[in-house]
């Protein structure tokens, strides 16, 4: 996936297309791990429960959840989306950059479970169709009843003539949208891409690159590996508590997370908005009034939707209240910012038609 598509008009135009119309992302670099029963039904669920922090036993067939795989110390191997495909059959969608590591991790830590692990990463091309018009667009290309697919649910249907395609109402943009999984042979993925682009013309579709993918997810405060989450940041610090189900029973990372909760956080993830001119970028330092370093920016960028310069940063909890003044060191200058509520952008969900 390129940073941006000149044919779409560049990053800003791509970003706006997703917020107002529809955008198309080639996210085939994402990895896919299937975990299913080897012999005894329930073995796959036990393995999934062991290696992920959310409660997969709560999933119905056709439902998905945001989750993460953790190291024993409660920090992140990766964040994942767990899909329940069947009775004891799960699909974990993982990040590209961590793919090899993730697969090794899953295999290494599920060996004692009655569970088969398959790396399907090379078998599927994942396309993300995102934006308020995504549903209208995809309806033109599939026989599946998309109205019946709620956010974080999925179905199977024919898409662009390809039978039994997985269609999930998920994404990484903060908008409504779908991720579809098609066979990865070049001819198939190219023809689907082209069909989606053609069908999307009436909705002003824009092919979107990594640049817009980053600004969209940042406005929606969705974590990026090695930025908001990493092998040295734990679940509580990252503010992902609601996806971590301590009460479900044992899983890798649980014991240390309980201890970490008792100790309290030394840093927490916050949202910032620049008050002074200047853009806080990834890795820049956060300073207090006296100019002492108190934290760092994990992701920062102009927000195309808000027209402001925004950032996510780790700072001590005492500095995390909304409205707290803060400074960002930008090319040796102390630029004023303040803590703001997150997510920076939240879509307005349409009321259910009566």
């Amino acid at each position: 996936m390129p940073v941006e598509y000149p044919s779409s008009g560049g990053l800003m135009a791509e970003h706006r297309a997703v917020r107002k119309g529809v955008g198309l992302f080639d996210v085939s670099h994402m990895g896919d791990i299937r975990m299913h029963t080897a012999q005894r039904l329930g073995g796959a669920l036990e393995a999934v429960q062991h290696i992920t922090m959310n409660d997969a036993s709560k999933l119905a067939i056709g439902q998905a959840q945001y989750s993460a795989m953790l190291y024993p110390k409660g920090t992140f191997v990766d964040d994942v989306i767990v899909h329940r495909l069947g009775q004891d059959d799960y699909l974990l969608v993982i990040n590209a950059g961590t793919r090899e590591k993730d697969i090794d991790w899953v295999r290494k830590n599920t060996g004692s479970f009655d569970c088969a692990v398959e790396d399907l990463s090379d078998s599927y091309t994942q396309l993300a169709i995102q934006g308020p018009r995504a549903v209208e667009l995809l309806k033109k290309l599939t026989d599946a009843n998309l109205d019946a697919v709620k956010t974080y649910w999925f179905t199977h249907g024919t898409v662009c003539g390809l039978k039994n395609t997985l269609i999930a109402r998920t994404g990484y943009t903060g908008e409504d949208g779908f991720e579809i999984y098609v066979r990865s042979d070049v001819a198939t993925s190219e023809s689907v891409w082209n069909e989606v682009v053609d069908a999307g013309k009436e909705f002003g579709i824009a092919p979107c690159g990594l640049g817009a993918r980053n600004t969209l997810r940042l406005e929606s405060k969705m974590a990026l590996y090695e930025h908001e989450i990493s092998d040295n940041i734990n679940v509580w610090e990252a503010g992902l508590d609601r996806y971590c189900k301590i009460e479900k029973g044992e899983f890798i990372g649980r014991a240390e997370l309980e201890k970490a909760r008792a100790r309290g956080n030394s840093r927490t993830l916050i949202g910032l908005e620049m008050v002074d001119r200047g853009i806080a970028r990834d890795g820049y330092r956060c300073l207090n009034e006296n100019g002492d370093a108190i934290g760092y920016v994990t992701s920062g960028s102009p927000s195309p939707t808000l027209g402001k310069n925004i950032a996510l940063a780790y700072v001590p909890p005492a500095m995390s209240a909304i409205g707290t003044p803060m400074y960002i060191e930008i090319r040796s200058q102390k630029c004023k910012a303040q803590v703001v509520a997150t997510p920076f952008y939240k879509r307005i969900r349409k009321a259910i038609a009566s």
Partner: protein
Amino acid sequence: MSYPAQFRYTKDHEWIEAKGDIATIGITDYAQHELGDVVFVELPAAGSSLTTGKTFSSVESVKAVSEIYAPASGRVMEANATLQIKPESINSDPHGAGWLVKVKLADPSELNGLMDAAAYEAYIEEKKKEASA
């Protein structure tokens, strides 16, 4: 977009146009294209000095910060104030309205060491080939 013959160019994609010892400096069409949508420009104050090869400004797009290096030494006479309000001028008119600073050159002969338009165009053709290879 064509590269004006009266400009001189650097390998870092700045352009400079001198009339006597007064020169205007900006970034090239190739540079703005690589950067994408420009959203913020940091410029030096009038009176500050530029040193050849040292950074004097930064131009930021949504996706990245780009440091701008002085093609020649001199003293800043004027910075392009309209860029504070319309940074996108760098995208729409990099060789004109998107200029960065006007300077009084310390030594106009410094420009002799820079590329002319034909050499610069050949240089960016190479860059494009590298990028697509």
